[in-house]
């Protein structure tokens, strides 16, 4: 389901590794969510930068391709791990984070709307997936570094 472009020194806590494991876990626990996510973002690439960490996720009908190359993304998102934790654990509303430029989003309106729907579906999958707690703990560890 997920093809990752990891080099031999890929760090387990890096963004690509974490998202790969998260998507695999969702595909296993809630396959309907994984299918809905691919359908919602089919044909799109989403780039994410968090500090020094970056990824690009490219969605096709059958797979999600992850790489560390940002070029060619339809939507680019720039934020920090701290902000993501504030949203997920402290209840910071996403719209407030965007308004305050803690989350910067760049893309056409239609593309951004599709990515927002994709985020919603991804979250539905993640909250139903037992392995998400461990992945979030690892994400939290790396945010403290």
């Amino acid at each position, binding site marked *: 389901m997920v093809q990752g472009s990891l080099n031999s020194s890929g760090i387990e806590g890096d963004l690509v590794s974490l998202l790969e494991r998260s998507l695999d876990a969702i595909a296993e*626990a*809630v396959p*309907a*969510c994984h299918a*809905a996510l691919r359908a919602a973002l089919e044909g799109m690439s989403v780039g994410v930068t968090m500090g020094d960490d970056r990824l690009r996720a490219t969605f096709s009908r059958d797979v999600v391709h992850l790489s560390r190359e940002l070029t060619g993304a339809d939507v680019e998102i720039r934020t920090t791990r701290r902000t993501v934790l504030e*949203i*997920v*654990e*402290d*209840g910071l*509303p*996403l*719209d407030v984070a965007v308004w305050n430029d803690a989350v910067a989003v760049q893309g056409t309106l239609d593309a951004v709307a599709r990515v927002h729907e994709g*985020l*919603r*579906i991804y*979250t*539905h*999958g*993640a*909250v*139903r*997936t*037992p392995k998400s*707690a461990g992945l979030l703990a690892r994400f939290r560890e790396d945010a403290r570094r």
Partner: protein
Amino acid sequence: MTGRRGGIGEDGWWIDAFRRSPARLGGAREYKEWQHFLVHARDVHLLVNFSLIDDTWTGGAEVGRVIALARREGWEGDVERIAPEDMDLAAGRIDARFGRHAMRFDGRSYHIEVELARRPLKAHLRFDPTSVPAVAWNQPLAASRSLSWLFVPRLEATGEIELRGERFAFERAPAYHDHNWGHFRWGDDFSWEWGSALSWDPACPWSLVYMRMADRRRTRVICQGLYLWRNESHHRVFRDRQVSVQWQGPWRSGRSLKVPRVMGLLSPGEGGDLPNRIEVRGVSGDDEVTLAFEPADAAEVVMPSEVAPTEIAALHECWGRVRAWGRVGGEEVALDGPGVFEFVRD
């Protein structure tokens, strides 16, 4: 001191014992059970809920969940998931440990200990029942779904709540307890409204509970009731066609606390389709009681739907003022105090 005695007592304790999921023994799945407590101290309000759930996302294993919400100049609280190996409880027993949290019954009073891991909220409380319970088994909830419940509409809570480093100690604060159990999925074709009404005046003899079960779109009422206690005893019940409900709304609650906080991504914005005033009227013969509730504040417990993978179900815990008036058995009914109404919505 009211001098009232109520509750289940040393001989009736079994009726409020945990049943636990029959799926553990090869029985029916999709079981849910919870013990629920509300406290209305003058400076702080508290909701505590100990739940057992057949977890859809781990193959139906029985897991625990503790919800603790405190209200004082805003909300604080969280939902904590408790792994099976971190729980100590048995079917047929009230005493239970859910991780760092615990509840027990000493033959007269309930005791609860709550300490959230990631939020600044602790509570150490004793609940003394001052009313006898009501019990209803297998009430219709949705197609092939039913819910049983026990509620003790009036107790007195004594103890301490520590919220954001500030301690609140109190004695004999108005309190409420219920216990529900049944087989259903969040996202099934049902909704409910459940309200408790207490008085700030310890000398006031009245307390009330309201319930309404409906389909998910709230186009069809399945059952409803308005229950009136006088001191420790059941006094009057109005059921089904004896009950009418009127709404004024919608209520613009503003941004409310949503727990677990990650679910705020799936339920953004204000609480949906809630009343800014609800009036429940029970009429039977010469007996008539009206209960009015106006919410002041709300917190939301948001859960992933177990029916549809990209939907949610939400419990809106609305806190506010309740008033009741009427006449039953030739005696005037009057109540003014704190209430909590829970609304199940998508």
